[in-house]
């Protein structure tokens, strides 16, 4: 039956069969299945994640029906984990769905080994103390963790894991690798074989811009003692030179050449991001190194040797105005160079594997080829323990956020989300959350509210003080709003937070795209949400 593939067609176009296979192997654990947790899993179950385990110790109450789509009338009084799990299962029978009716806090306290079987743990609505403990457990067990919180009109998402390496980062915009600033002999020869002054207009307008640029760059260099255009004036002059060689107005190849003319004078060598990766301490590999770092070590050697300072050539070229023949030949020249670079890297990978005492063939050709193709876009993500961030945030950043208008709500919410947990630890309830579902404003609740506001303010300022920001304050409005929220988990906010969680899970599991770094603070007031790098 063709159904499974067809069902996933729209996402396979994004992460491909490899990504889908990784997703189908993953086992995800969810802590607390309120709307934030339910929505996170909903998106993953639809996408065909391997298995889910829902952990929640609570029973379904009336109020839960108002914000969670994975419950209905018949769920009242039953185990929330069981009901949510059953509704999630309905979405996709290819997913193995399990539930554990136990409080996450108890599991974290009593049974830390429970978590080590999962690929990834999603914790939702955990207060600070439990979250920090869980973070320690997951880090120890080398299990990926995503912490999420929905709180009134705010919320947060934070990834926590030791290290995540991305080969297929698939950035939206990335400069193609044409090497026009450093053509190799075969490419030069190809350019030389074409007469760009051909009298045949049909041929003239079908010479690929790569050839036009190479030839005219050479012409330029011959009259500028071997240099390529560098100053703004020279670059303009070079464009004029290109323009002067047009023989008709409709020559798109020349228009493309003018637009791409900067490519002949881009700096040679690798970008700073890649430099940082090959200089990383992990690139000094031993038998315990991961395949990724073994390949980085080989890449480093390649750049220093055969690459002459450059990464392996990607090998693909963008579409450009050209005759079919020129284009296909050009494509072959780029592919041949990429293949040669790959073979050199592969040889180095095999040698390194031998050197560190591993089976030389253990990393497949396909992996190495894929690595080479993406060498310029490698990404390494590392995350501090949340506790470390809480105890010693990057002060410079913190100060910057506190003084930046664009960040004022986000950093305020960041502090206040911690403050409400301390409040809860002190008073056994969230600020603005009163007994007996007291919602309607009256004298009594207002007095209680005022008291909560001043208590929360004291706690928040205390946190800022502990962080060494004594002089900073938070706006009264925001503290007021935080108390008004009363710990509410609104469905829309939960759907946004849950959506982001599932997106990050997919990135982590498929090892494609770059997961977010830092703490994402959702700002549901004016949608000026921010990522805080603390």
């Amino acid at each position, binding site marked *: 039956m063709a*159904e499974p593939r067809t*069902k*996933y*067609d*729209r*996402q*396979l*176009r*994004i992460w491909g069969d490899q990504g889908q296979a990784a997703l189908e192997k993953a086992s995800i654990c969810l802590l607390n299945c309120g709307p934030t947790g339910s929505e996170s899993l*909903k998106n993953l179950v*639809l996408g065909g994640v391997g298995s889910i385990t829902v952990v929640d110790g609570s029973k379904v109450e*009336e*109020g839960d029906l*108002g*914000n*969670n*789509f994975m419950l*209905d*009338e018949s769920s009242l009084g039953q185990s929330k984990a069981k009901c949510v799990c059953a509704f999630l299962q309905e979405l*996709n029978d290819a997913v193995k769905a399990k539930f554990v009716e136990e409080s996450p806090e108890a599991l974290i306290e009593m049974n830390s080994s429970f978590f080590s079987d999962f690929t990834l743990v999603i914790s939702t609505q955990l207060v600070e103390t439990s979250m920090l403990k869980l973070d320690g457990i997951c880090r120890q067990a080398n299990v990926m963790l995503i912490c999420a919180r929905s709180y*009134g009109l705010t919320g947060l998402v934070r990834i926590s894991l030791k290290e995540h390496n991305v080969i297929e*980062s*698939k950035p*939206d915009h990335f400069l193609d690798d044409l090497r026009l600033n450093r053509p190799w002999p075969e490419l030069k020869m190809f350019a030389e074989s074409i007469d760009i002054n051909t009298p045949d207009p049909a041929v003239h307008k*079908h010479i690929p811009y790569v050839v036009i640029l190479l030839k005219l760059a050479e012409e330029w260099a011959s009259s500028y003692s071997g240099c390529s255009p560098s100053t703004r004036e020279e670059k303009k002059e070079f464009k004029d030179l290109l323009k002067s060689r047009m023989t008709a107005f409709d020559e798109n190849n020349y228009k493309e050449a003018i637009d791409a003319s900067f490519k002949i004078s881009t700096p040679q060598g690798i970008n700073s991001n890649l430099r940082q990766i090959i200089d990383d301490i992990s690139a000094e590999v031993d038998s315990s190194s991961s395949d990724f770092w073994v390949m980085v070590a080989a890449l480093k050697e390649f750049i220093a040797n055969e690459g002459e300072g450059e990464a392996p050539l990607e090998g693909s070229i963008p579409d*450009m105005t*050209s005759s*079919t023949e020129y*284009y*296909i030949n050009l494509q072959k020249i780029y592919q041949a160079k990429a293949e040669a670079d790959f073979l050199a890297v592969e040889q180095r990978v095999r040698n390194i594997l031998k050197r560190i005492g591993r089976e030389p063939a253990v990393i497949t050709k396909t992996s190495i080829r894929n690595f080479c193709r993406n060498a310029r876009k490698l990404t390494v993500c590392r995350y501090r323990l949340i506790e470390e961030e809480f105890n010693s945030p990057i002060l410079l950043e913190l100060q910057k956020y506190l003084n930046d208008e664009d960040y004022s709500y986000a950093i305020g919410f960041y502090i206040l989300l911690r403050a409400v947990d301390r409040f809860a630890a002190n008073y056994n309830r969230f600020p*603005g959350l009163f007994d007996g*579902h*007291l*919602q309607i*404003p009256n004298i009594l609740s207002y007095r209680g509210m005022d008291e909560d506001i001043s208590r929360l303010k004291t706690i928040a300022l205390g946190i800022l003080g502990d962080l060494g920001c004594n002089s900073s304050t938070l706006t009264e*409005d*925001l503290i007021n709003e935080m108390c*008004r*929220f*009363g710990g*509410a988990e*609104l*469905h*829309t906010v*939960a*759907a*946004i937070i*849950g*959506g*982001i969680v*599932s*997106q990050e899970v*997919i990135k982590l599991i498929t090892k494609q795209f*770059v*997961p977010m770094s830092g703490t*994402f603070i959702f700002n549901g*007031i*004016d*949608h000026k949400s921010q*990522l805080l790098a603390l």
Partner: protein
Amino acid sequence: MAELTDSRSRSRDLDKLLLRPGNIVGKLFEPGPELRDDLREYARVLVVGAGGLGCELLKDFALSGFQKLEVIDMDRIEVTNLNRQFLFRLQDVGKPKAEVAAMRVMERINGVEIVPHFCRIEDKEDDFYSKFSLIALGLDSIEARSYINRVACSFLEYDSEGNPFEETVKPMVDGGTEGFKGHARVILPGTTPCFECTIWLFPPQVKFPLCTLAETPRTAAHCIEYAHLIKWGEMHSGKAFDADEPEHMQWVYTEALKRAELFGIPGVTYSFTQGVVKNIIPAIASTNAIISAACTLEALKILTGCSKTLSNYMTYNGLEGLHTKATEFVKDKDCLICGSGVLLEMDTSITLQKILLPYPCFTNSAQFMNLLGEDPMVLLSKPTSVVYMGNNLYKMVPPVLEEMTRSNLSLRLFDLMDKVSMGVVHVTGTAIKNDKKNSSLWKIRVVFKGMVDGVIDMDLAGGA
């Protein structure tokens, strides 16, 4: 709280926002149980589209205190919807999306009523759209957005100072996604830019030049489009290509493959062929969930004032890390769709007459078209059509229409506009500016002298 009812505790979380006063709220926010109850009872929301965004929107509205919803969608459920359109199951394939989506949400959530409309958006009269408090757009086409925007903005009326009448403003929230990226926006016609004001945000789709396809193919897409756009027509005289017909798709794929092999071009696969021919936009559950929820949250804020609203366009990009950005676009005051247009006061006695040849021949300033010719904002020299509420009052070409509308010329504009006190007509024609002739379109806000006050009084009486 003795009167604590089931339904009240069901809105346990939402009540925090709707019942309590706040510091960062809308100007007209009046917290209290009445607000929550009014939202349930009076707020009517139309969800346009029951696809990836529409399914989410229906769920989000139903769980955000709304109980009167309608949904319109002309499509039937397909297998490829199932990775994100969570209200549908495999056994639903082939059924109308609107109907299944409405049923599923009503089954799950007590108290919510959803009326499905399995039809095209153009099939509904404008009146249908006027009854909603807000319209939420979950669409994937520019044309459909443009259509709804035009209808919603057609209700908009301005006072004599050019400020929109509150009760004629039809708010919209609009979402869109593509892979890991998306946008959510708020449209308050007359205040924030309408869809047309910022149409440039949607760049036109890039099409391959036919000569590239025919003569110098270089990529797999070129081979596919050759088979699809050129070869199909040559080989199937008269038979239209249908992308939903697997045999047609298979034919295009086979032909594209042949052509690719001929030229030594790699990369033609069946899946890629489908992608190119149907212009498939990749779609995933998470982005749809995020964008829809942002739209619904804004809708709740617009209708209740329970917090500040987004000003007015949020972009979301989850591809590399996570970036969101709120941008405040400004409306185009000359927008033909939401702008106030050119105000023209006139007597009820004015006719459309003498617009016809020989032109211009007005000596009588009491003629509508002549008024336009004199207005410094318009300077019309030769009208080609006059349209009111989508009906041609006059059209110069084609001859058939000219003949049909000719009799209107002798009628009073006041009568042609059903004796309204004010209304908007769209006029196309040639304008002379700096001695140059340009063809233009104007939005003319006609106000009949001596009528406006009386009508406003009547409205007040009716509302009391």
